[in-house]
């Protein structure tokens, strides 16, 4: 059944002052709109009522709003979920950025022609759009499975359980508690941030054990995590084999202290009385702190901060909690051994934020702080050490003799960092072309994901899971799996508690969204999802390799197996597919291809160039809008199509556009590389790689590859937009018209 399309053109906000609206109405008619109406205040109640009337009385079921950007008045043009509404932006991206056409000049009416093309493209788009239906997975579970029973894992489990969700906690050791079992005291967990806290493992564990929503597996290892959000089947070896079905997973496997060999430069392993933080903790827990060499009481203790940390040769990063851990130990030493002298050698005391109060507390306890690196350490006798350090604050050297105990404040390594870097298996596609860079996936044997791209979470740096760690710290590269605590980033106990509570919320959100058939972050609530027409699939596997979220597995016949609940709806698979067999109900290769082809292409001698802009809707489109809002002016030759992510760029669009006679194509996407801003992590990078592959082909066809470019734009680059677009237009002018123009 064909759609009954109504096109509603707003003439306000200066639109009709710069163009002949008749040209726009003609475009609507020519493209088969059943109704086309204009209004000078379309977003006002009269305008909206006019549209509603057509929906109610004229049988219109599909609406094109040719007016302002879809980024504004989002709530005004909402006619219910059974109506397709598309916004054709003729305000911010046409009327406000081009010069006014001369009235009654139908040769040089460039602004009107641009607006007409925007309408044509929008109509073409809605003709191809289908109403979305949520993906209903079967036997969806809302259970949250937590991996790791330390502070973060215990907290996440309890907090999710308290919110009414079934939880399953998997711990590899025989007892819950993780490092809590090995600690004498904890650093402060709340205001006033001055007192030491009892680890209270038994009470914490008991609360979980008694909670009706909690299932606990100890001495348990995850052999395999199969499936997808809403329907993970987690195979657990705990004596016998158990399979737990879960909707989302919280990874709280923690961190371990840096390896002993990274401490040998500080005498560890050479001098008996050099111990680590954790070894001191064990002694304190046993109630007696003595010199390991002769079990005598300690009178002089020296802490060395950043032991193996902030060190390019060892752990380059700061572990964020070792400073306050030493403060804690200095405080309890002053209580257990009031006569003992405690010295802390440090680079910076990183008692960040409210822990400043704790730093004060350690100072009040008589701790001596010396800023400087240790320059030498010698055994003065069998039982004591002599230390020498720089003393930056007082100048010169600080010598310390008769030291009974040296405590190394060691850093933490995430459990996800141990193992070989095992990337997705290399495929036979190695035909010399530039391949998509592989993610660093460390086979750390924790989740053992049954994902084609690898068995664990992709990492970013130092083995920590990759995420948009500033704005969206919980979102890993695997939907429905949320890393928390010290496996996510170095952090102290208080932070781990908050972090785990937040992770529990994210997991709950994921199971609820999945049950409703909706996407998780960042296209939260999106009901569309990719579908594969397997009949035409050639099993090239590009989709399975390029998906930034590892959503696509392989079935037993080596066909791609889509896991819609893992999908973030960026369309990277759709862009990757050379056979164009992947599509969404409301976004497809064909749809964008038709939009490219449906516009009126002027003849070569008309001297009206056409430049196709494929712009990422996340940053590039807002930047284009901002150029409009600031009334910056640029050439009217550009024709902008918004894409979900540049990763959804399919090369056939380039071929279509060049064949059609566009003089140039500009792909505008987000920054990629180490500090990437791409909302889908790899989309813009993949688009660039794909483009590099067509350059050669274009040259071979006698089409200069300079006609097709990518440019990185972020949302704040709007002042640059005119220059970017006009410089490109100028360069294209030098190249002359696309030679294919008159064949189209």
């Amino acid at each position, binding site marked *: 059944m064909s759609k009954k399309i109504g096109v509603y053109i707003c003439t*306000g906000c200066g639109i009709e002052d710069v163009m002949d609206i008749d040209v726009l109405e003609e475009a609507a008619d020519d493209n088969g709109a059943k109704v086309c109406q204009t209004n000078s205040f379309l977003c*006002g*109640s009269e305008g909206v009522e006019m549209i509603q009337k057509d929906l109610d009385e004229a049988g219109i079921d599909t609406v094109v709003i040719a007016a302002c950007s879809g*980024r*504004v*008045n*989002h709530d005004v043009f909402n006619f219910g979920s059974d109506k397709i509404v598309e916004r054709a932006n003729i305000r911010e991206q046409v009327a406000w950025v081009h010069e006014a056409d001369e009235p009654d000049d139908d040769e040089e009416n460039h602004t009107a022609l641009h607006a007409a093309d925007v309408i044509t493209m929008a109509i073409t788009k809605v003709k191809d759009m289908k109403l979305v239906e949520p993906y209903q997975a079967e036997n969806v*579970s809302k259970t949250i499975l937590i991996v790791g029973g330390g502070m973060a894992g215990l907290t996440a489990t309890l*907090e*999710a*359980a*308290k919110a*009414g*969700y*079934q939880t399953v906690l998997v711990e590899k050791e025989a007892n819950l508690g993780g490092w809590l079992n090995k600690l004498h005291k904890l650093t402060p967990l709340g205001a006033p*941030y001055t007192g030491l806290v009892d680890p209270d493992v038994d009470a914490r564990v008991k609360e979980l054990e008694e909670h*009706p*929503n909690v299932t606990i597996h100890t001495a348990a290892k995850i052999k395999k995590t199969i499936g997808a959000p809403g329907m993970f089947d987690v195979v657990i070896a705990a004596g016998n084999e158990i399979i737990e079905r879960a909707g989302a997973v919280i990874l709280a496997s923690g961190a371990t202290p840096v390896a002993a060999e990274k401490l040998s430069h500080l005498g560890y392993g050479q001098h008996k009385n050099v111990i680590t933080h954790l070894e001191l903790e064990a002694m304190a827990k046993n109630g007696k702190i003595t010199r390991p060499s002769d079990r005598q009481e300690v009178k002089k203790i020296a802490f060395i901060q950043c032991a193996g940390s902030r060190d390019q040769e060892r752990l*380059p*990063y*700061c*572990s964020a909690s070792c400073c306050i851990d030493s403060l804690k130990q200095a405080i309890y030493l002053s209580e257990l051994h009031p006569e003992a002298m405690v010295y802390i050698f440090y680079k*910076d*005391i*990183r008692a*960040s*934020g*409210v822990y*400043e*109060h704790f730093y004060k507390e350690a100072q009040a306890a008589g701790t001596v702080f010396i*800023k400087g690196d240790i320059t030498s350490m010698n055994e003065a006798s069998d039982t004591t050490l002599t230390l020498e350090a720089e003393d*930056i*604050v*007082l*100048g010169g050297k600080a010598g310390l003799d008769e030291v009974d105990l040296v405590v190394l404040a060691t850093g933490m390594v995430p459990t996800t960092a141990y193992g070989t870097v095992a990337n997705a298996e290399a495929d036979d596609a190695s035909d010399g072309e530039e391949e998509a860079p592989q993610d660093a996936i460390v086979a750390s044997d924790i989740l053992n994901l049954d994902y084609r791209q690898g068995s664990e979470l992709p990492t970013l*740096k130092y083995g920590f899971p990759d995420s948009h760690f*500033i*704005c*969206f*710290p919980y979102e890993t590269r695997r939907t429905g799996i949320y890393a928390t605590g010290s496996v996510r980033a*170095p*952090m102290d106990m208080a*932070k781990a508690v*908050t*972090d785990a*509570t*937040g992770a*529990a*919320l*994210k997991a709950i959100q994921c199971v*609820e969204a999945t049950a409703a058939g909706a996407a998780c972050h*960042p296209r*939260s*609530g999106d009901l569309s999802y990719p579908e594969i027409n397997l009949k035409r699939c050639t099993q090239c596997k590009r989709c399975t390799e390029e998906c930034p979220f590892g959503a696509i597995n392989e079935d037993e016949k080596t066909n791609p197996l889509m896991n819609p609940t893992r999908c973030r709806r960026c369309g990277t698979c759709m862009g990757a597919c050379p056979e164009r067999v992947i599509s969404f109900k409301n976004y497809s290769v064909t749809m964008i291809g038709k939009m490219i082809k449906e516009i009126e292409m002027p003849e070569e001698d008309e001297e009206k160039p056409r430049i196709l802009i494929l712009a990422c809707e996340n*940053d590039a489109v*807002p930047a284009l809008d*901002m150029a409009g809002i600031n009334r910056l002016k640029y050439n009217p030759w550009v024709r902008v199509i918004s894409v979900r992510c540049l990763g959804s760029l399919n090369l056939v669009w380039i071929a279509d556009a060049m064949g059609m006679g566009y003089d140039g194509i500009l792909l505008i996407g987000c*920054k990629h590389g180490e*500090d990437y801003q791409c909302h889908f992590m790899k989309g813009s990078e993949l688009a660039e790689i794909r483009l590099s592959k067509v350059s050669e082909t274009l040259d071979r066809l006698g089409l200069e590859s300079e006609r097709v470019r990518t440019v990185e734009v972020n*949302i704040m680059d709007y002042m640059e937009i005119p220059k970017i677009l006009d410089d490109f237009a100028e360069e294209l002018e030098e190249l002359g018209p696309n030679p294919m123009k008159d064949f189209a």
Partner: protein
Amino acid sequence: MENKSILVVGGGISGITAAVEAAEVGCQVFLVEKNAYLGGKVTQINEYFPKMCPPNCGLEINFQRIKKNPKITVLTLAEVENISGAAGNFDVNIKLNPRYVQDQCTACQECVEVCTTERANDFNFGVDNTKAIYLPHPFAFPMKYVVDIDAFKGNEAAELAAACKHDLIDLEMEATTMKVNVGAIIWATGWSSYDIKNLSNYGGGRFENAISNIMMERLAAITGPTGGKILRPSDDGEPQNIAFVQCAGSRDEHHQKACSSVCCMATLKQVNYIRKQYPDAKITIYFMDIRAMGKHEDYYQQVLEKNVKLIKGKPSEIKEDATSKNLLVLSEDQFTQEIATLEYDLLVLATGMEPATAADNIPVEFKYDVDGFAINGVTTPGIYAAGCTRKPGDVASSVQDATAAVLKAIQSTTGRGGEHE
């Protein structure tokens, strides 16, 4: 019946996060913001450390999440007047201050072109002016104009009202009160930059070229008063010798006692702003400890390679040269054990975060720490402080904290039973 809706007070990054995260679980959310726009402090920040990416990028995603989610009601120019009731059943009165422009505003800008009256631009801390009818900043969400009614003299206002062809300027608009009943409340009113006027030994805000770090953000931002060019306020000159003073009003018994946890990284980031514009400028940082926590250490190491002089010491006094308007900083350098007065043409006071609740308390019994940060769980169950209301933190910490607060709020509204499969 238990009420599962949540009131979020404060529309900065913490409040926005709390609102969208709660709504995406299925809660009904009221998001109350006193400004005419959402985004709070992060909208005034030029770039985030360590990625040097624009806050408006992350905000854009969050605004899209809000726009698509019918469960969120955004109330700008709104303030909570009072709260009564208990967890699961709070009655809240919200005062909605007049915008003087109706919601149908199309942001067409015609009124601005007509308006001749100007006002100090509070978004840029009064350094420049906007018209009296204005968009708070270019990325303002919601994108609706607002009128500063106090700026008008004579009948300027009446003339302006005629400028809107849709007749949407309504100068008679009055504040109204809205009542909502919610199950839980998340208080996320954030922070204010510790006022440099309190630092009398540093010139007490009297020296034009001694600016706060948040002002530096405005100077570096393309949406700021200088269009993103860092210029010294006294003469719009290009600074060539800049110093940062860390812990200005922080870690100090006479001011904020705590460390604000972000100022070190903020300064390192601002070093990059300056280096980008002035490759040869001299840059000095007076510091106590550089607290570049966790993986931020990498960023610190990169900045150290950019020819930055570190002086370990907290200046005891700052004076101004009356002619050059340069700043004279008296401090010990603990690296050299020397006391010296050094001259700079621009000085950035890396001030910390003062909780907004220090001035505007949560209107119920609530406990606060020595610096005024709110302490959860002591009084009034069902109300949770989040983000910088609870403790100073960067964006990532605030997002984390706000997300956690949502779960606590949900727990307090749903009871503790196992109602999900």
